[in-house]
C-alpha cells in the first residue's frame, strides 16, 4: 500500500486545497461523544432580559465531566470587532475540566470576559469568545419574536449566528497544558477539547437567540424550526495568528497528513466497490453539490477555486455514471482519473469523498493523529555529515534551487507583534523588524546548512560545535527521516506565499467548511453546520452531518 508522495502532498497549494474528512477533529469528537454515551444538559441558565448573564452546559460520559461556562454580554455595536485587539465581545466562554462550584463561576466571571487580559487556571481546557453576525442575529430574533421562521436562504448565506474570534487551549493564558488530556477517553487527541467547546458554544448561541426572541415577543415568540436550527453552524474568523502553527509543529503535521494519506491508501487498495459504498459515495457527491451551492465567497482566489470545484463535481458525477465503479480497484482508478482531469481542489475533495463510505476501514486512524514532540527533539549528534547531506538531498531538494538573495526569494518575514504578541507577516524590503524574524524561513535555513556542510566529513555533533547557528535546520532535516509529511515544501518567506493556504490546511483538519478568504491572510469559515445538537446526537445517523442533508 503506497501513500502519495510528500513531494506532491506537502506543496502549499495542495495543502491549501484541503477539505474536511472523516478524520477531521470535529467529526472525531462527535463520534467519540456518541460512542462514549456522553450526555449534555444545561444545569444553569442565568441570562436576564437584556441577554446578559451566564449559562452552564455540562457534558458527562465515560466517568468524566466537562462544563462550558458561557457569559453573555451587552456589547455596544461600536465595540464589536473580530480583530485580535478587541477588548469586548458578545459572548465569552471557558471549558472547565470537572464539576463546577459557585466559586469557580465567580472566578471565571472575573477573568473570562477579559480574555487575554484575564487569567484562567489549569482546570480550564479552553478559553474562547464570539461575536454576533449582526445581520442574521437581528433577523432571526425579529422573525421568531413575531411567531415567524427566519429566511432559510439568509441562514444558508451567512451560516452562523455567532462566530468565534479565538479558541485558545493548550496552556494559553493559564489554561491546562495539552498533556492534561493524555489518556482521556474522549479528549486525548489534537484540538478535541477545542472542538467540543465550539460544539457546546453552538448550542448556547441557539438557546440565546431563542431567549432573546422570547423576551422580545413574549407569547407570540416561537422556537426555531429544528431543521433551520441545524443549518446554523458557528462561524470563525482566523488570521495570521494561526498560520505558523503547522510550521512550528512538524511532528503533529506529519501525524495528521500520515493519517489522512494512510486512510486514502487503504481505500485505493480495495479490490472493488460494494453496492453500499457506491450508494454512500453517490449520496456524498450529491450532497457536496448542495454544499458548493451554499459556498459563497468574494475573494478572487477562492471564487476561482469554487468555480473549478463546481465543474469538477459535475465531471465526477458524469464519470461515475459511465461505469467508473465497474473496473477492478475502482477507487484507485478514480484517483488516477482525477489526477488527469480535476483541479487540485477537486482532487482533494475527492479524497474526502472517497473516505466517506469507509468509516470501518479508516476511522481508527483518528487515534494516531497526536504526536509526542519531545520524543524526537534531540539532535542525533552521532549521525555523519554525509548522512545529513543525503537527507537534505532526499527530503529538501525542493528548497535548494531558490535564490534567497533575490528580492522575491526572501520578500517576507514572519515576526511577533509587540502590540498583541501575535504572529505577523512583514515585507522585508519595505518594513523594519526583519532582525526579529521568527524561524519560518525553513527553506532558506536548510539551504544555508547545505552550503556550510559542503563536503565535510565527521559527525553532526562536531559540525554543530563549529556551526551552532545551524541547529535549527539540522533538527528539521533529521526529523524528516521519521516525519516525511512534517514539512510544508514551499518557501514561507517568498513573494508568492499565500498565507491563507496555511490557515486552510489546519482548518480543514479541524473540520471547517465554506472557506471564505477575506484577503491573502485571513479567512472566515463555518464549523458544525448541519451537526446534531446534544439532544439530537443519539437520534441522528452516525457521523452523517458533515455535508448538507439530501433533502432539506
Amino acid at each position: 500500500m503506497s501513500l502519495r508522495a510528500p513531494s506532491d502532498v506537502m506543496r502549499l497549494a495542495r495543502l491549501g486545497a484541503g477539505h474536511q474528512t472523516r478524520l477531521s477533529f470535529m467529526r472525531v469528537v462527535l463520534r467519540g461523544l456518541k460512542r462514549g454515551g456522553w450526555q449534555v444538559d444545561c444545569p444553569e441558565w442565568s441570562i436576564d432580559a437584556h441577554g446578559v448573564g451566564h449559562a452552564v452546559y455540562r457534558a458527562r460520559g465515560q466517568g468524566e465531566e466537562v462544563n462550558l461556562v458561557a457569559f453573555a454580554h451587552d456589547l455596544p455595536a461600536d465595540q464589536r470587532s473580530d480583530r485580535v485587539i478587541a477588548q469586548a465581545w458578545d459572548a465569552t466562554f471557558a471549558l472547565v475540566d470537572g464539576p463546577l462550584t459557585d466559586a469557580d463561576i465567580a472566578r471565571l466571571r472575573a477573568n473570562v470576559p477579559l480574555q487575554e487580559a484575564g487569567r484562567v487556571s489549569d482546570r480550564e481546557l479552553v478559553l474562547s469568545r464570539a461575536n454576533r453576525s449582526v445581520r442574521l442575529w437581528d433577523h432571526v430574533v425579529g422573525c421568531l419574536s413575531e411567531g415567524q421562521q427566519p429566511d432559510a436562504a439568509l441562514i444558508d448565506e451567512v451560516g452562523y449566528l455567532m462566530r468565534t474570534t479565538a479558541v485558545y487551549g493548550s496552556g494559553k493564558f493559564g489554561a491546562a497544558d495539552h498533556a492534561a488530556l493524555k489518556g482521556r477517553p474522549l479528549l486525548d487527541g489534537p484540538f478535541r477539547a477545542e472542538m467540543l467547546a465550539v460544539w457546546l458554544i453552538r448550542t448556547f448561541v441557539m438557546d440565546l437567540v431563542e431567549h432573546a426572541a422570547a423576551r422580545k415577543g413574549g407569547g407570540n415568540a416561537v422556537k426555531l424550526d429544528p431543521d433551520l436550527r441545524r443549518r446554523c453552524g458557528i462561524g470563525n474568523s482566523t488570521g495570521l495568528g494561526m498560520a505558523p502553527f503547522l510550521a512550528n509543529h512538524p511532528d503533529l503535521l506529519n501525524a495528521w497528513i500520515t493519517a489522512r494519506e494512510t486512510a486514502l491508501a487503504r481505500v485505493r487498495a480495495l479490490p472493488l466497490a460494494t453496492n453500499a459504498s457506491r450508494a454512500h459515495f453517490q449520496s456524498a457527491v450529491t450532497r457536496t453539490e448542495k454544499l458548493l451551492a451554499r459556498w459563497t465567497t468574494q475573494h478572487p482566489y477562492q471564487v476561482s477555486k469554487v468555480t473549478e470545484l463546481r465543474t469538477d463535481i459535475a465531471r465526477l458525477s458524469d464519470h461515475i455514471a459511465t461505469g467508473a465503479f465497474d473496473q477492478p480497484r475502482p477507487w484507485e482508478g478514480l484517483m488516477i482519473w482525477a489526477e488527469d482531469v480535476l483541479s487540485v481542489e477537486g482532487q482533494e475533495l475527492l479524497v474526502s469523498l472517497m473516505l466517506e463510505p469507509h468509516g470501518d476501514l479508516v476511522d481508527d486512524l483518528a487515534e494516531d493523529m497526536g504526536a509526542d514532540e519531545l520524543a524526537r527533539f534531540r539532535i542525533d549528534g552521532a549521525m555523519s555529515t554525509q548522512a545529513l547531506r543525503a537527507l537534505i538531498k532526499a527530503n529538501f531538494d525542493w528548497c535548494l534551487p531558490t535564490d534567497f538573495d533575490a528580492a522575491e526569494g526572501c520578500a517576507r518575514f514572519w515576526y511577533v507583534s509587540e502590540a498583541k504578541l501575535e504572529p505577523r507577516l512583514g515585507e522585508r524590503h519595505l518594513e523594519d523588524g526583519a532582525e526579529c524574524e521568527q524561524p519560518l524561513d525553513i527553506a532558506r535555513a536548510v539551504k544555508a546548512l547545505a552550503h556550510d556542510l559542503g563536503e565535510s566529513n565527521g559527525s553532526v555533533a562536531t559540525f554543530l560545535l563549529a556551526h551552532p547557528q545551524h541547529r535549527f535546520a539540522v533538527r528539521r532535516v533529521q526529523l524528516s527521516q521519521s516525519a516525511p509529511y512534517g514539512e510544508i515544501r514551499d518557501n514561507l518567506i517568498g513573494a508568492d506565499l499565500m498565507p491563507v493556504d496555511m490557515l486552510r490546511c489546519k482548518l480543514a483538519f479541524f473540520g471547517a467548511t465554506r472557506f471564505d478568504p477575506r484577503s491573502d491572510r485571513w479567512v472566515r469559515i463555518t464549523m458544525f453546520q448541519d451537526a446534531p445538537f446534544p439532544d439530537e446526537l443519539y437520534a441522528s445517523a452516525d457521523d452523517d452531518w458533515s455535508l448538507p442533508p439530501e433533502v432539506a
Partner: protein
Amino acid sequence: MTTRTLSEIAATCTKAARGAGCPWGIAQEAGTAARLLEAHGLPGTTTLAHLFSAPRSCACTGQADAAACGLAQMVALSDAPPDQALRIDTVAAPLLMLAPLILEGGSWRMDWEGGAAGCGPDGAWIMGEAPKVASVTIKRQQDGQKGTGSSWHSRPVLPEAWAALQSLAARTYVPETDASRASGAGPDDSNSD
C-alpha cells in the same frame, strides 16, 4: 507567586534565549530545557534567568573571559552524551545540562561542590540549590535515584526571574507601524456581518 503553564514557560524561555542572542535552534532547546526541568519540579526558569543575568562565554556572546555558557554546554552534551565521567569547569547555570539527559532517558548524575542533581526512570532530583556557576562532573549511573516525575500542572515561578525573561523575550517583538497595520493580519472592523 505567579503560576505559569509549561507552554508559557517554554514559549517565554525560547523567546528570551533568542532575545539574549542565541540562534533559534539553541533558543528552542533553551525553552524545551526550562520546560522539562520545571515539569520535573526543578527551577528551569530561574536557572535560565540566572544564565542571562551574568557574563557567559560562548559563540553567541563572543566573550571568552567568563564562565562557560550553560546552554552551549547543554547542546554539546545533548549531541554527544559521554560514555565516561565528564568534568566541565566553571559553567554558568549548569543545571540546564540535566535537561537533555532527561530526554535521553537513562540514569544520570551531575555533581558540583555542595550539591548534586540527577535523573532516571523514576524522575529527576536535586540536592542543594541550583548553582549560578559551578564546575560539574556528569556521569551515567546504573541505578537512578528516586526523583520527581513529570507533571503538566501550572507551577509557581519567581516573579523577578519571569520578569527578566519577559524583558529579554520582548527584544524579539516588532512594534506596529503604519505599514504593518495597513497590511492587515486579520479581520478589520468593516467585517462585522
